[in-house]
């Protein structure tokens, strides 16, 4: 059905806050009041409690993960494996091809685990360098064939271990960003849970960067920040309030282009609805980029990230 008057006004206000793609989620009946709340929140300053609630929801054990969205959003999904370099196939990074509507897309994303075995196999969603190299390989494959790239970001950070360092964690994260900066296909990233630092930005140098309403995106975890600046990890809540990892603030700072609404009390309460809302936003974002020539996409993408920062 066509959007209502009221809805249009709301969505317009929302988009004015920072010219972001209108949120597909808003099209869904029953989402309007959430959208309204979201807009109100964007209006005023989120409280320390609201920010902390995002932190908790972003890390919620029942929150949908990358593959939960893949199975609901992509047809003909085919997962690709391996770094082709002999370091193996990283379980924390998922990469593959599938159809978003009629379009073939490449999807990359971190994947946490549900039970302890899977968490271990997937390193709690913290990729090794070989995981980023797998993502690079699949993104470049997409570039060769003109497939849009979608990345779903959900990681506490890149894996902090001896082998990961020896395999070249810093270089792999840099190389993955560089590969995305070179792509001439549409790229859309969405933070669906924890957007943890370098491990997150490695796959988030995209034409459109979205965040789910209760996701967080930050340069350091609240605990890490508190431990360093407050000398007390217990002050995590205070730290979070100080560096503001919530979607509303990331939108205000121009770090993201749009917020994807979540159903009910959060994505974990209704996977299908969360997937519908995410899917609509992803499709809208890809559609909006599909007609732009590749080199122009790349030029704008670089210009966008090169404009980030506040200095005088």
């Amino acid at each position, binding site marked *: 059905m066509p959007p209502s008057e009221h809805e249009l006004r709301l969505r317009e206000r929302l988009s004015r806050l920072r010219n972001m793609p209108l949120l597909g989620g808003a099209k869904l009946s029953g989402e309007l009041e959430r959208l309204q709340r979201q807009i109100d929140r964007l209006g005023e300053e989120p409280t320390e409690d609201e920010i902390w609630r995002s932190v908790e929801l972003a890390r919620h054990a029942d929150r949908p993960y990358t593959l939960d969205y893949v199975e609901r959003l992509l047809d003909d999904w085919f997962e690709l494996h391996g770094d082709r370099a002999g370091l193996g196939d990283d379980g924390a990074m998922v990469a593959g091809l599938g159809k978003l509507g009629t379009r073939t897309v490449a999807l990359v994303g971190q994947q*946490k685990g549900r039970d302890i075995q899977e968490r271990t196999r997937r390193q*709690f*969603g913290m990729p090794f360098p070989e995981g980023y190299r797998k993502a690079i390989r699949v993104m470049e494959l997409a570039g060769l064939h003109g497939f849009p790239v979608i990345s779903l970001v959900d990681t*506490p*950070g*890149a*894996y*902090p*271990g*001896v082998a*990961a*360092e*020896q395999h*070249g*964690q*810093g*270089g792999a*994260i*840099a*190389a993955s*960003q*560089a590969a995305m*900066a070179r792509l001439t296909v549409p790229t859309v990233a969405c933070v669906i849970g924890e957007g*943890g*630092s*370098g*491990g*997150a*930005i*490695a796959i988030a*140098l995209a034409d459109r960067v979205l965040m789910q309403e209760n996701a967080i*995106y*930050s*340069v*350091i*975890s609240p*605990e*890490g*920040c508190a431990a*360093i*600046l*407050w000398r007390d990890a217990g002050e995590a809540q205070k*730290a979070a309030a*100080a*560096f*503001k*990892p919530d979607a509303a*603030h*990331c939108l205000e*700072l121009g*770090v993201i282009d749009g917020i994807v609404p979540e159903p009910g009390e959060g994505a974990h309460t209704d996977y299908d609805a969360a997937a519908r809302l995410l899917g609509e936003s992803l499709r809208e974002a890809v559609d909006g980029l599909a007609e732009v020539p590749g080199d122009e996409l790349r030029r704008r*993408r*670089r210009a966008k*990230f*090169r404009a*980030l*920062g*506040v*200095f*005088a």
Partner: protein
Amino acid sequence: MAKIDVSVQTDDKPVPPPKHPNTCPSCHSHYRDDELEGALWVCGQCGHHFPMRARSRIASLADPGSFVEESAGLHSEDPLHFFDLRPYGERLAEAEMSTGLADAILIGPAAIEDRSCELAVMDFSFMGGSMGSAVGEKFSRACDSAAERGAPLVTVTSSGGARMQEGILSLMQLPKTVCAVEDLHDAGQAMIVVMAHPTTAGVLASFASLGDVLLAEPGALIAFTGPRVVEQTTREKLPDDFGLAAQNLRFGHLDAIIPRPEVRPTVARLLRLFDAPE
């Protein structure tokens, strides 16, 4: 485990300096400032490389009088009005006072053995060389300046991690500097990276790893995650040379380790190679 962030290296700041700041930590020889300055801050007894300030570094690299500083006054703002135990603004002011720098990097055109290049040199003394908006912007301008003048970029890195007080904007300096390097490369220019101690976290995970040639100084810590965080997080036993330049070379992440006195002639040689008519 999954909760500990791995990208911040502030706990890898060098241990508080000994009473006499010019005491060699490895052989305990004492030096006067002018002695060390004359020796490029390398211990004459054991070869230990002391930290080198950005201006001394530039003096040791560039032909005399050839360096012209760009964007000297550019400094970070405080978009988050960040306040931990003290306001960010206060920390910035203090760092400016103590270092005489507006932030943790100096940029500008220079010549090395008569070959023109652009320099971007970090200074660990300014808030641990952490990368905030000012560092990201100045490094990116250095890339553009090099591209415009058709000269290679030579960057000396030294960074303990993220500028937490700028929150997510400090993380955004990674993609920002990566895009700047890609623009430099598309302009056909090379980047030569010299990694000084320590080159870690966000700087290593962005522009520092994207050089056409990657050099490091002996003993430099080069790691995305520093030893302490790795130990605390994974409880792994660390190899003795964990994250050091030698280990990075052994694992294929560096082209060469160059003792400080050799850095200038080595960079000059590389400039001759990258300048050559095609």
